[in-house]
């Protein structure tokens, strides 16, 4: 009996391996890239503009009404995005809607903030450097220690790998003075010296209150913000920018996206209807006239343009044939009843996810059963009654099971 079970152990492992290997090989042969269009908003004609990369690495340019353009006239209508080209061609207008079209002005008033689903699903060690925010020198400098906020606030010095008790005590006291409840749930900052200035960290405490912590002249500067604790914050992305309009973006567990503004940490909800943080990438691009939010998954892209008062100006949605509707996906569904997904584009975590391929798989399963029966009955001449479980395996796993039970054959059991 146990040897019989041992055979099924081998069979199930080989089925698992085949359900990793065969779909991988299949998509290695038949996979093609999903090319997303680039969407812009023209302040000149007040319409969305679309650049699409076609198969042979060429680009097609059009507006939302379907008029096509060559590259130069396309870029001419998008002066905030291609001002450097327009300047080179000598056709950069002096102003657009009262906005002076100077290279430095546009650059200073343009900002990009990208939120990827991968950044939301990645393991992180919560140890960060706290920069001096008001240094006497121009460039930000990396401090000699990292901080953690577990049951208390601690600085760990890198040179000797020990806790700096005196400095930790000062910062711990500053947090306690503001009623901080340990431990911290989220510590969000921009831990790099490659930024124009430093805004420190936004820290969500055990009671979901958001605190803003900075180091100013070596001393803690901690503010208990009025950001509502019931916002259900999932992640915060901080991006320091000379415009000083917002510190960064909050993404909530209910897929809301809010800006944390410099106006006393007032929260501004962005109009991102249908945004799903786990599946989508979001890009907020700001130019002197408009702010554009683009968010997309593997099937569709939505674009919303808002003005500087956060009023919606225009919306645009584009979609393309999703991978599930490709002919090659349908054939894969017939061939493979399921596949095992280990890595995805949307997460850094390795998974073991069984992905079923829907009702089309039944065709493949029937063929697999038939092939198994014919082979076992007429080629191998096995006793079918003693090994009926093999058919159940093929019924559940289709081609994977059929290949396995035909390779790893039952023995004449004792």
């Amino acid at each position: 009996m146990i040897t019989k079970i041992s055979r099924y152990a081998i069979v199930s492992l080989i089925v698992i391996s085949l359900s990793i290997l065969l779909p991988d090989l299949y998509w290695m042969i038949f996979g093609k890239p999903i090319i997303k269009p680039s969407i812009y908003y023209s302040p000149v004609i007040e319409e969305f503009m679309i650049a699409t990369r076609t198969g042979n690495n060429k680009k097609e340019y059009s507006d939302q009404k379907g008029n096509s353009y060559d590259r130069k006239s396309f870029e001419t209508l998008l002066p905030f995005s291609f001002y450097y080209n327009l300047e080179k061609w000598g056709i950069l207008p002096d102003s657009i809607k009262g906005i002076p079209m100077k290279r430095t002005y546009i650059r200073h008033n343009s900002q990009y903030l990208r939120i990827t689903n991968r950044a939301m699903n990645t393991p992180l060690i919560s140890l960060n450097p706290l920069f001096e925010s008001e240094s006497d020198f121009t460039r930000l400098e990396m401090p000699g220690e990292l901080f953690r906020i577990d049951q208390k606030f601690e600085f760990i010095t890198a040179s000797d790998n020990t806790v700096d008790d005196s400095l930790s005590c000062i910062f711990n006291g500053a947090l306690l003075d503001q009623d901080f409840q340990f431990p911290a749930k989220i510590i969000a900052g921009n831990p790099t010296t490659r930024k124009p200035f430093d805004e420190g960290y936004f820290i969500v405490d055990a009671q979901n209150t958001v605190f803003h912590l900075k180091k100013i002249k070596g001393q803690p500067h901690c503010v208990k913000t009025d950001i509502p604790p019931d916002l259900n914050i999932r992640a915060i992305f901080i991006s320091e920018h000379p415009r000083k309009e917002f510190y960064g973006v909050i993404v909530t567990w209910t897929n809301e996206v809010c800006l944390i503004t410099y106006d006393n940490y007032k929260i501004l909800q962005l109009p991102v209807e249908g945004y799903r943080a786990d599946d989508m990438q979001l890009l907020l691009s700001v130019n002197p006239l408009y702010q554009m939010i683009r968010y997309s998954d593997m099937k569709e892209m939505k674009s919303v343009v808002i003005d500087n008062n956060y009023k919606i100006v225009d919306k645009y949605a584009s979609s393309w044939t999703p991978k599930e509707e490709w002919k090659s996906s349908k054939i894969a569904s017939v061939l493979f009843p399921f596949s095992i997904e280990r890595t995805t584009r949307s997460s850094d975590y390795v998974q073991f996810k069984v992905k079923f391929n829907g009702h089309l798989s039944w065709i493949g399963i029937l063929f697999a059963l038939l092939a198994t029966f014919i082979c076992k009955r007429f080629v191998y001449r096995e006793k079918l009654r003693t090994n009926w479980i093999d058919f159940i395996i093929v019924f559940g796993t289709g081609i994977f099971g059929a290949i396995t039970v035909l390779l790893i054959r039952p023995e004449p059991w004792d």
Partner: protein
Amino acid sequence: MYKAILYKEWLKIRWMVLGYLIILLGFLTYIGLDTRYWFEMNDPIQVWLVVIQRKILYYTAIKYIPVFAAIVLAIVQFVPEMVKKRYRLSFHLPIGETHSLLFMIAIGVAVMLITSAIYLLGLTLIGMTFFPAEVTRSSLITVAPWLLAGIVTYLGATAVTVDPSWKYRIVYILLFAPFIQSLFLEGGYGEYQFSFGTYLLISLIFSIMVLFPGYRLRKGSKL
């Protein structure tokens, strides 16, 4: 009887175990020295940030060591048994074939577990010397799939060695590989923290796998 089998197994594997221990300690020492060199040559905070933010794993040198050791262990333990079909002698022992095979496998798994403990201990010592506790903890979580791969490879390799037919051996080698490869897919630290339990559960299937090749060996199956 079990004591005698234990002694026989020990005679077969002792040099291999000693060799593995020397290599493992050698590699751990290398990682320790290499990490120390990093800290000497760079600003310590930069080394920390490279490990934490850029997710460079300072211990990748020992990534595949358990897998290689497992293959060698299975070979030194079972190839001598297969030469001239010596293993068939154990069918005449007053102990069932299932029990004796499982006991032999258990000895191999015990060796893999003990060496895994040394592996983890070494990494803990290196981590605690140079890094904050969070980094050390993450290193132990990150290497867990590699150590599991060692045990799974050992169990797979025993099945390959014990089976009497080359056709089956090749199928086993080709088709155990994708599962074992699944344990080496990380691009940074801690990426298996949500799926490790599933991989561990599936790996349990490997534990009784050797019995079928053992049965085929006894029956002299030529399929």
